[in-house]
């Protein structure tokens, strides 16, 4: 088997494990999807919160920043005592990992909205919730979407590590390939993961363009 070149190895493994690849990709997508959903909801929420409560800005951005500096594998390890082994831990860790770009971009997106526009909105009698929903968020959307895109692409890569804590996904093949010394097997995990990242990147680029208000294009 070891006489085969890497491409032949890959083809062989792919043929052998075709259904497993589909299965793992589906798990991988689920890991990314659920962790991103939580990260988007909480990230945007926290981003909005720190524009309203300036005292929290340093704490929240700092906290999310520290999260980002913890090596991904270590973060996964830390989560095991809390969520046990498996999918939940992986989602929790991936979520924490995706938080920073979303919080930061939501915060800057809102802060970057022209002061005069906000003053006019208040001056016309909008409540602060109306200012947020009708002015600040629509104008911050391109920035927020850029944050989500960054987070999602990083997330796809980091999610391969979930295999180390038994959460499955495309990382399984990479893990297996390393332990058994089969390079083709590593590719079998890496190529779909990379493709997934590219697809997400394209998807979010379009979504960003589509959600940008007409007058800003």
């Amino acid at each position, binding site marked *: 088997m070891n006489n085969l070149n890497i491409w032949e190895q890959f083809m062989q493994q792919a043929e052998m494990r075709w259904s497993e690849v589909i299965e793992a990709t589906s798990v991988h997508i689920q890991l990314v999807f659920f962790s991103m959903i939580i990260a988007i909801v909480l990230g945007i929420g926290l981003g909005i919160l720190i524009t309203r409560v300036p005292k929290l800005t340093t704490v929240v951005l700092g906290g999310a920043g520290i999260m980002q500096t913890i090596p991904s594998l270590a973060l996964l390890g830390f989560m095991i005592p809390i969520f046990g082994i498996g999918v939940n831990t992986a989602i929790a860790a991936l979520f924490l990992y995706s938080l920073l770009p979303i919080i930061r971009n939501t915060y800057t997106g809102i802060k970057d909205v022209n002061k*005069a*526009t906000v*003053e006019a909105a*208040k*001056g*016309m*009698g*909008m*409540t602060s919730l109306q200012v947020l929903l009708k*002015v600040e968020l629509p104008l911050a959307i391109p920035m927020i979407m850029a944050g989500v895109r960054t987070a999602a692409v990083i997330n796809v890569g980091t999610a391969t590590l979930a295999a180390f804590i038994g959460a499955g996904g495309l990382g399984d093949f990479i893990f297996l390939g390393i332990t058994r010394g089969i390079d083709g097997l590593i590719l079998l995990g890496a190529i779909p993961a990379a493709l997934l990242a590219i697809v997400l990147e394209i998807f979010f680029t379009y979504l960003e363009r589509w959600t940008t208000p007409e007058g800003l294009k």
Partner: protein
Amino acid sequence: MIKFEQVSKVYTDGFKAVDSVNFEVPEGEFLVLIGPSGSGKSTTMKMINRMIPHTNGTISIDGNDITKLNPSELRRNIGYVIQQIGLFPHYTIEKNIAIVPELKGWDKEKIKARVKELLIMVDLDPEIYGSRYPKELSGGQQQRVGVARALASNPRILLMDEPFGALDPITRDQLQDQLISLQRKLKKTIVFVTHDMDEALKLGDRIAIMKDGNLLQIDTPEKILQEPASSFVEEFIGKDRIIQNPELMPVVSVMTTKVVTALLALTPEKALLMMRQQKITSLIIVDENDEKFIGLISAYELIKKVNSIQLIEEIMRVPEHTLTETATAKDAIMMMPNVKYGVIPVLNEAKKVVGIVTRGTLLTALSSQWTELEGINE
């Protein structure tokens, strides 16, 4: 009516932006707040719609203390125009104008009709501009939309914070003229902040001059120019202001009170002698009983006809052009080209002559201000 009673704005660090200010803005008045930067003029204006909360005193609108009103409700009933315009970039022009009516829950048809009406009012074709976005409009056009937006729900009060300050001079002039004609029709109560004295004089029914958070003087433009309450006001309005605004300059300041009067009984020879001695070119004839103005005699005509006439009455003219004491220098300037021999008598209520305006007195008065101005510049 807007009323300020002992209103102050003191920041937490102790800085007094506005210091115990008292004034009233009657319904339908155009009040201009003016002063150097940091004088508290913008702060004073923004306290009216609670964009900046005041810390002491009472501000009331039609007798209602504004702190007792919901701030959003209050603001929806006060038009607000700012220098940076602040149109929503993600809204079309139509939607921008419709913001306050929508907040107030007007029905769609009514809003649509109102938006159209407003666009026409500010000289923007609704067909062309209604569906555009703010960035597709010039600065002047954007501020027209800004004004339309502030007027959308037909508020009785309009607050304008240096609305034309960022526009080029020609556009600014056009928008000022437009605002004047709008105000003639709409009769809003307007509080307008500027640091441009010419703008203040052009627009204001009254002008309030502020410095270091204090209100120094609040008066009509004429009063401010003629009776500045302090040397600061005088300096602030500038000495050259009158030349640029002759309509604000009383006629008495461009006339001479050195008037030689005579009675009708005078002989032509004596009249000529009198004029030569006094070095004057016209003689004012008054009634012998009550000194009322009758007419005037010009030296040029007298010299020509002195030998052919018996009574000065024969060459006396009763001028159609006279001015009252309350007239302005502008009236005199406008009248001058139509006046024969260039003499305009200025009469008081009792029809007595208080002075005359000649081309010479006009020129002297206006040029003296030029020379004063030159002196300052040097």
